[in-house]
């Protein structure tokens, strides 16, 4: 045991190289199956995190869950005030408030998921730095919290159906498909944004901006028919939400099927986001604690 060491650099004493020998670099071996099993085992944690977010909001605010509804309702009123009288957009005999609100609900879900999940890792950094869990539980929990709000805000939709005596059509049965595409996109985007945000903190300010612009770039206030038909496939690839929002209107309000071609493109893009976002997340995950 060497104990008498007054030297400043003790590696000289031990005779260690200044860097590890090549070839012993640590590589985490984590298969997809293993990762999925681990995620499945963390389902209770996800549930607890969602519960925490909801409880905290309920305890902190007077309006509680009312806030979930208020956001899209205010936008609906504003849109109606500005766009309905101008008569800009072809709604196809659908009352404009209903026309915009049915897109506002899925849009709000996406924007809330993106902004909550984007900062979910940053806001849980002290925790990440102390205990282990698969890190994707945080953006996933935020996305579920946003989904909960979306469910709450559909209650207003029911009120609107009744008020305008405009019942939803049978084609509403197609909506689970639309929801699946949207959730895939929202999750993919959240995984991408939250993991890169650790490395590039500027994204904290960029993501809300992108989301805000996205509201006007997506067919929320207007219909997809505004876009020239030739550009729509490209539009769907860039903004997978476009065919989804349009799909909600086509099915629920008009009783048509979704536009399969465009929805297919959106589905491909969304799953590319999901897979790419997850792969990037798991790759960046190993160094999260280093930068905390």
């Amino acid at each position, binding site marked *: 045991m060497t104990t008498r060491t007054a030297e400043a650099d003790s590696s000289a004493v031990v005779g*260690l190289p200044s860097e590890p020998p090549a070839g012993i670099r*640590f590589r985490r071996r984590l298969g997809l199956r293993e990762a999925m099993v681990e995620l499945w085992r963390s389902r*209770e944690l996800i549930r*607890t995190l969602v519960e*925490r977010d909801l409880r905290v909001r309920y305890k902190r605010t007077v309006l509680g869950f009312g806030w979930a509804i208020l956001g899209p309702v205010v936008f609906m009123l504003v849109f109606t005030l500005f766009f309905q009288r101008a008569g800009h957009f072809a709604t196809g005999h659908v009352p404009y408030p209903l026309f915009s609100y049915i897109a506002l609900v899925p849009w709000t879900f996406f924007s809330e998921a993106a902004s909550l999940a984007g900062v979910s890792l940053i806001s849980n950094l*002290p925790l990440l730095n102390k205990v*282990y869990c698969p890190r994707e539980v945080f953006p996933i929990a935020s996305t579920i919290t946003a989904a909960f709000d979306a469910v709450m805000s559909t209650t207003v939709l029911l009120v609107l159906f009744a008020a305008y005596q405009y019942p939803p059509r049978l084609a509403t049965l197609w909506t689970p498909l639309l929801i699946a595409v949207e959730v895939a996109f929202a999750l993919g985007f959240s995984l991408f944004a939250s993991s890169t945000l650790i490395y*590039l903190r500027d994204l904290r300010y960029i993501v809300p901006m992108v989301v805000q612009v996205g509201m006007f770039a997506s067919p929320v206030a207007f219909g997809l028919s505004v876009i020239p038909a030739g550009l729509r496939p490209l539009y769907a690839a860039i903004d997978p939400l476009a065919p989804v929002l349009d799909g909600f209107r086509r099915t629920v309000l008009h009783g048509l099927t979704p536009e399969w071609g465009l929805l297919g493109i959106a589905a491909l893009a969304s799953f590319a986001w999901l897979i790419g976002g997850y792969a990037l997340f798991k790759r960046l995950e190993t160094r999260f604690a280093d930068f905390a």
Partner: protein
Amino acid sequence: MSIPGSAPPGSVHVDQLWKRFRADRSRPVFRDEVTRIADRIRLGRQAATRWRWALRDVRLSIEPGESVGLFGANGSGKSTLLKILTRVMYPTAGSLRIAGRVGALIEVKAGIHPDLTGRENIFLYGSILGLRRPDIARRFDAIVEFADVGDAVDRQLKYYSSGMAMRLGFAVAAFLEPSILLVDEVLAVGDAEFQQRCLDRMRAVLNEGTTLVYVSHDLASIEAIAKRGIWLRDGIVRADGPIRESLGAYRHHIESAALTSEDGSGQLGLAAMVSGPNGSAPASQQPLQIDLTLKSRLPQRVVLYLGVSEGPAAPVFSLRHEALLGEGVTHSTCTIEAAPLPRGHYYLWLAATGPAGGDLTPWHPVTSFELLGDELDATLPGVVRLSPVHVKARWQGTTSAITTASSA
């Protein structure tokens, strides 16, 4: 990372472990990465990024049920190693095999949310640690009792005292029942009673066969808990062996660093020699003679402080003496009638102040000496002895022999 079947649960095998951090952590990560990639393209090979190595070539093998104390100065890599063992961090190089569930008793206000009640926080933190709800419910009462929060369990956490909040976090982790328990600085948290409860809990966990890795700056508590000690310095394992030996090496290092650095400072020159009776070697319970040489530039009245320590600046005992010094060198002898210390290596610390206070020479180690004699009796595992004092004691009734015992 855990490979079931290949090693018994509770064992840790770490081989050639290296971990690096960016040298300047205040720089934005992204800019660093861009520079690195640009350099790699421009120079065609890995550029000389400035790294700081937090761990270098760490090799450890811990068997199930072992109790290991991990110590070293600030920044020596203890916490980094612990984080790698909990999988919060990943090493840069080397291999790591951990069998069984790892639980960490780490200061956690992090998992804990101020707007939730104590009860909600127990469930929240429990599931973060990987416990299932029924498991938490089953241990709920024990956790509340351990944290000693009582009726406050249904109060929001923001109305807890800071000590209560921390105890709650600890209590949840303490009932994890992992096969490997990592403990980081428990004794910094909570009052004396809670600290003792933590130590008791660690001992109970050890008795159940759990592997324990305990990190602390409190060397006495490490000595009370761990059988094996690992001293980390600048990310390198400098000593790994039986706790008394590796702690001894570490203490010795602290002291000898202090001995060399404090030379000649102060307005008053102080030197000392320690010996036993009639010039023999110093021994336990024998007279201890300390010969002081004091160098002063002017005649003055000073107050001398003298202490003997085995660890850092806190002495086992200290003496105060008012001395009258002439100009130049004055000799003084202090005799301690029976050295109340067990066998070991000790350091003599000295300081001098003016009669009204005011440092003439700061508190610093002057010399060290070996003391012969008996070893200390062992304490009950988990009980921290404050300092090694050797007292004469007589036992009757259960034995006829006269023995010595130790106490604090």
